[in-house]
C-alpha cells in the first residue's frame, strides 16, 4: 500500500559536494547512485555547489523538465540553507514545503574520519529524507502583521546608537536602562583609542539627543522583568524602580543635592568606581541623561534599611520648592510595552581583579584597575584629572599589567580584545598627566584595527617601556633599598630571557571583559542562547552576527562578546538595520509548523489543554472537542506527542513523516 503511494510522487535528489567540504569525506556520486534506486526517485544528481545560482537553477530546470513534485537536497545544515532551497523550489513552481534537507556536512563529513562510514551515514540520512518527503503536504506560509515599535534593552553606546538609528528612521523606540542614566561604560572613559578624542565629547551629544528625541521613550532606572509573545508582537513588562523623584518635574537644578542634610558627600560613588563620594541624593555624573536626580534609599536619612521612616528634616524637599519633584512615597511600578522587535545591548562587566590574588588588588591600595584609572585621569573624575594615589602621592613610576582575567585558563580563556589598546591609551594619558616612567607588561601585543598599530608605534616613540611576559606577582616585599616602600612586579622578561623585579609606585591591572552577572537571566527572558563563555550567542557567527535564534530579537555590542567602541557602534547599526528590515516589510512570515486537531478523531479527553505553554488549546464545549488557535500555536509539538488518540497533527512534523524518517534511517544497513 505504501509502495504504490510512493510511486505517485516524483522526487528529485541532489547531493552537494560543497567544494571539498562534503566530497572529501562522503562519496557523493555513490550516494546519488544509491538514492536513484529508491522508490519514487525520478532523478538523482551530485553537484559541486548546490547553493550557488547554477545549483538552484538546476533544481528549477529539473522540476519543469522532469515534472518533479518533491525535492531533497543533501548538503549543509537546514538552519543555514533551508530557506535558500525552499525559495528555489518555489521559484521552480512547487510549494516550498515539498522539500526536505539532509544535513551531511555539519552532521557528517565534518565530524567523521572514515570515508566509508560517512558515506553509509549519508545514504541512511538521504534514504530517510526520501521516505519523508513523499509524505509532505502543501503548506501556506502564515503572514502576521508586525508591531512597528522597538524596544532597546541597555543604554550604553550600543543601545544609544541602535535607538537613535531606529528613531531617526521614524520608529517609536523604548530605551530601557537599569542605571539612573544612560551612557554605560563609555561615559566613564576619559579618552578613546586610538584617536584620543574625549569620550564625553563624542558620547554626550548623542545622549542628550536620545533624551530629547520625540520618537524615543527613555525608561531609566528600569529593568525588563518579562517578555511574552512572538516576533512582531512582543509584550514586555518593564519594572520601574522608584528613584523618589518625579522625572517630569525635576529640572536637574541640583538644589536638592546642595541642600541635603549631609553637607559633605560621604557615600560610595558607583560611577567613580568608589574613588569619589556622593550624597544620598545625587546625579550620577554631570552629563547624565536624563538630567534627573535620584535618591538612594539605602543611605538617605529619610529611610531606614530602605523603608520610609520620614524622620529626616527633608531640606531637599524645601530646596526643591514649587517644583515638588521629590516624592518619598514613590513605589516600584510596572509598565507593559507592546513592540515588534527587540534589540538587546546589555553590555559587559569588567573582570573582578580580586580573582587574581597574586596581583594584590584590594590588598595594596596602590594597585588600581584600568577603569579606576579612567576615572582618575578624567577631568570630571573624583580628583578632577589629577593622578594622585590613594595615599595622596603622585606616582613616579607605573606598571601596567595586561591580560588580567583574559587568556588565562584559571579565569577566562578568551582575549578581551580591547585591553592592549586601552592599556596603551592609559599609558599615554598617565605619562601626559604625571610624567612618570611607564612599563607595560604584555603577553602578545594585539593591535588589529584602523590606526591601532600606528598608535603602538607612537607609544614606543613616547618612551613607554614594553616588556613581554606574563607577570608572576605584585608584592610589597623589598629585596633591595630601591624596592623599599614600593610595589614590585616580578616577571619573566621572555625577550631578554631572565626573571626581573621592577619596583613601581602604582600598578594598573588591565582587566578583561566578562558577561554581565545576570546574563543568564536575560538570556532566558529573551529566549536566547549563550556561548560557553556566557556571552549571547549569535544566529551565525559570520552570516547573522546580530540575529539570535529567536526571530525579531537582535543583539549588539559587548553582550555578544568583547569588542571596542567602533565595532560596537557598527554592530548596533547592523542590529537596527535588521530590525528595520523586519518592520518595514510590514508582516512576519511564520513557519507553518503549527498543530491542528482532527475533529473526527478527538475524543475530548482534554489531556492536551494543560500541556500548551501558550494556552493555544481550548475546549469547545458545544462540540466536546479541543481546538487549537493557530495564531497562538508556536509549533513545538508537545501536544501532538501527548494526544492519546493521535488526533493532533503538526504540520511539517506529522507522525507519519517522522515514522517514515525513522524507518528510512534504519532501512539501510
Amino acid at each position, binding site marked *: 500500500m505504501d509502495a504504490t503511494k510512493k510511486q505517485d510522487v516524483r522526487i528529485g535528489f541532489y547531493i552537494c559536494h560543497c567544494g571539498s567540504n562534503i566530497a572529501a569525506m562522503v562519496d557523493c556520486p555513490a550516494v546519488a547512485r544509491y538514492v536513484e534506486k529508491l522508490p519514487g526517485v525520478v532523478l538523482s544528481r551530485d553537484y559541486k555547489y548546490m547553493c550557488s545560482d547554477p545549483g538552484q537553477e538546476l533544481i528549477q530546470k529539473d522540476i519543469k523538465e522532469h515534472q518533479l513534485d518533491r525535492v531533497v537536497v543533501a548538503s549543509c*545544515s*537546514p*538552519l543555514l540553507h533551508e530557506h535558500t532551497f525552499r525559495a528555489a523550489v518555489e521559484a521552480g513552481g512547487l510549494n516550498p514545503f515539498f522539500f526536505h534537507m539532509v*544535513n551531511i*556536512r*555539519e*552532521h*557528517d563529513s*565534518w*565530524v*567523521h*574520519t*572514515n570515508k*566509508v*562510514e*560517512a558515506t*553509509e*551515514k549519508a545514504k*541512511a*540520512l538521504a534514504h*530517510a529524507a526520501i521516505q519523508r518527503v513523499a509524505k509532505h503536504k502543501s503548506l501556506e506560509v502564515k503572514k502576521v502583521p508586525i508591531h512597528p515599535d522597538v524596544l532597546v534593552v541597555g543604554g550604553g553606546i550600543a543601545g544609544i546608537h541602535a535607538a537613535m538609528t531606529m528613531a531617526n528612521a521614524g520608529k517609536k523606540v523604548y530605551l530601557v536602562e537599569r542605571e539612573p542614566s544612560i551612557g554605560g561604560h563609555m561615559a566613564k572613559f576619559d579618552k578613546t583609542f586610538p584617536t584620543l578624542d574625549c569620550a564625553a565629547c563624542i558620547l554626550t551629544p548623542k545622549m542628550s539627543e536620545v533624551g530629547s528625541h520625540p520618537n524615543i521613550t527613555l525608561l531609566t532606572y528600569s529593568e525588563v522583568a518579562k517578555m511574552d509573545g512572538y516576533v512582531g508582537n512582543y509584550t514586555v513588562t518593564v519594572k520601574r524602580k522608584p528613584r523618589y523623584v518625579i522625572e517630569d518635574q525635576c529640572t536637574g537644578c541640583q538644589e536638592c543635592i546642595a541642600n541635603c542634610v549631609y553637607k559633605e558627600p560621604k557615600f560610595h560613588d558607583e560611577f567613580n568606581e568608589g574613588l569619589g563620594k556622593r550624597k544620598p541624593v545625587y546625579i550620577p555624573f554631570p552629563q547624565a541623561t536624563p538630567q534627573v536626580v535620584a535618591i538612594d534609599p539605602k543611605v538617605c536619612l529619610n529611610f531606614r534599611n530602605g523603608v520610609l521612616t520620614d524622620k529626616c528634616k527633608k531640606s531637599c524637599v524645601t530646596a526643591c520648592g514649587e517644583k515638588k519633584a521629590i516624592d518619598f512615597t514613590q513605589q516600584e511600578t510596572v509598565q507593559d510595552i507592546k513592540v515588534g522587535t527587540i534589540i538587546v545591548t546589555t553590555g559587559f562587566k569588567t573582570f573582578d581583579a580580586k580573582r587574581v590574588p597574586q596581583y594584590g588588588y584590594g590588598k595594596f591600595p596602590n594597585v588600581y584597575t584600568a577603569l579606576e584609572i579612567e576615572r582618575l585621569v578624567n577631568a570630571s573624575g573624583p580628583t578632577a584629572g589629577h593622578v594622585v594615589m590613594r595615599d595622596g602621592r603622585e606616582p613616579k613610576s607605573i606598571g601596567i599589567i595586561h591580560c588580567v582575567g583574559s587568556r588565562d585558563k584559571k579565569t577566562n580563556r578568551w582575549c578581551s580584545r580591547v585591553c592592549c589598546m586601552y592599556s596603551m591609551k592609559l599609558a599615554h594619558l598617565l605619562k601626559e598627566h604625571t610624567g612618570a616612567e611607564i612599563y607595560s607588561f604584555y603577553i602578545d601585543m594585539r593591535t588589529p584595527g584602523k590606526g591601532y598599530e600606528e598608535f603602538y608605534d607612537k607609544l614606543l616613540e613616547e618612551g613607554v617601556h614594553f616588556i613581554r611576559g606574563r607577570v608572576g606577582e605584585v608584592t610589597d616585599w623589598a629585596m633591595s633599598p630601591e624596592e623599599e616602600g614600593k610595589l614590585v612586579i616580578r616577571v619573566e622578561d621572555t625577550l631578554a630571557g631572565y626573571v626581573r623585579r621592577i619596583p613601581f609606585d602604582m600598578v594598573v591591572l588591565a582587566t578583561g571583559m566578562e558577561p554581565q552577572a545576570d546574563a543568564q537571566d536575560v538570556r*532566558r527572558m529573551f*529566549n536566547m*542562547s*549563550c*556561548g*560557553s563563555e556566557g556571552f549571547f*550567542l549569535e544566529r551565525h557567527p559570520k552570516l547573522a552576527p546580530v540575529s539570535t*535564534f*529567536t526571530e525579531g530579537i537582535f543583539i549588539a555590542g559587548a553582550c555578544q562578546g568583547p569588542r571596542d567602541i567602533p565595532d560596537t557602534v557598527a554592530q548596533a547599526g547592523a542590529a537596527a538595520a535588521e530590525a528595520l528590515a523586519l518592520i518595514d516589510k510590514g508582516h512576519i512570515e511564520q513557519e507553518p*509548523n503549527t498543530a491542528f486537531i482532527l475533529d473526527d478523531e478527538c475524543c475530548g479527553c482534554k489531556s492536551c489543554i494543560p*500541556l500548551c*505553554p*501558550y494556552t493555544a488549546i481550548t475546549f469547545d464545549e458545544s462540540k466536546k472537542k479541543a481546538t487549537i488557535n493557530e495564531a497562538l500555536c*508556536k*509549533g*513545538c*509539538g*508537545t501536544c*501532538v*506527542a*501527548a494526544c492519546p488518540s493521535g488526533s493532533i497533527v*503538526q504540520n511539517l*512534523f506529522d*507522525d507519519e513523516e*517522522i*515514522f517514515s*524518517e*525513522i*524507518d528510512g*534511517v*534504519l532501512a539501510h544497513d
Partner: protein
Amino acid sequence: MTSEWNPRLVAFFCNWCTYTAADLAGVSRLKYASNVRVIRLMCSGRVDPQFILDALAKGADGVLIGGCHPSDCHYVEGNYKCLRRFQLLKRMLSDMGIEEGRVRLEWISAAEGEKVKTVINEMTATIKQLGPLGMPAKFEEWDKEMEHFAAAVHAQEAQKAPCAEHAQLQETAHV
C-alpha cells in the same frame, strides 16, 4: 564496512539547542562516532514515546534524545514534558528487558558542541558492550512462536466436537 560490529543509534534532537549544538560540533570539526542518525524535531516535547519504541523495533540499538537544559526550553517547558514521558518510558523499557544505557535523554545547549561529541561517543561505547538489541529478529521469533501457539490451539479446537459457543470463542480469539 568494517568487520567490527557497530551499533545503530537514532537521535531525536530539538531544533533550538541540541541540533544547533550538533551543528556547532560540525563547525568546530569535532570528531565522533559515525553510527548516529539524527532526526530533527522542533522540541524535545515532540518526542512521542512511540518514536523511541518504533526506532528500537525497527533495528536501532539505542536512542538518544537531546533537548534544551531545564528552564532553557525555547517553548518554555517542552523539555520537562519530555522528561516526564521519559521517566515513564524507562520503567516500561526495563520491564521489556531493554538495558538502561540504550535509551538516553540529555540536555545539550546550543553552545555545547563538545557535549554532543562526548555523549555520542559514550553511548556508542556503552552499547558496543551491551551488544546488538536485535528487536526485528526477536519480533520474527516471537511471531513464529505465536504462529506455533495458534496452530496448536487450532489443532486442539478441531479435535473437540464443534459447538456453537466454541466456534464463537475461537473467532474472538483470532481477532
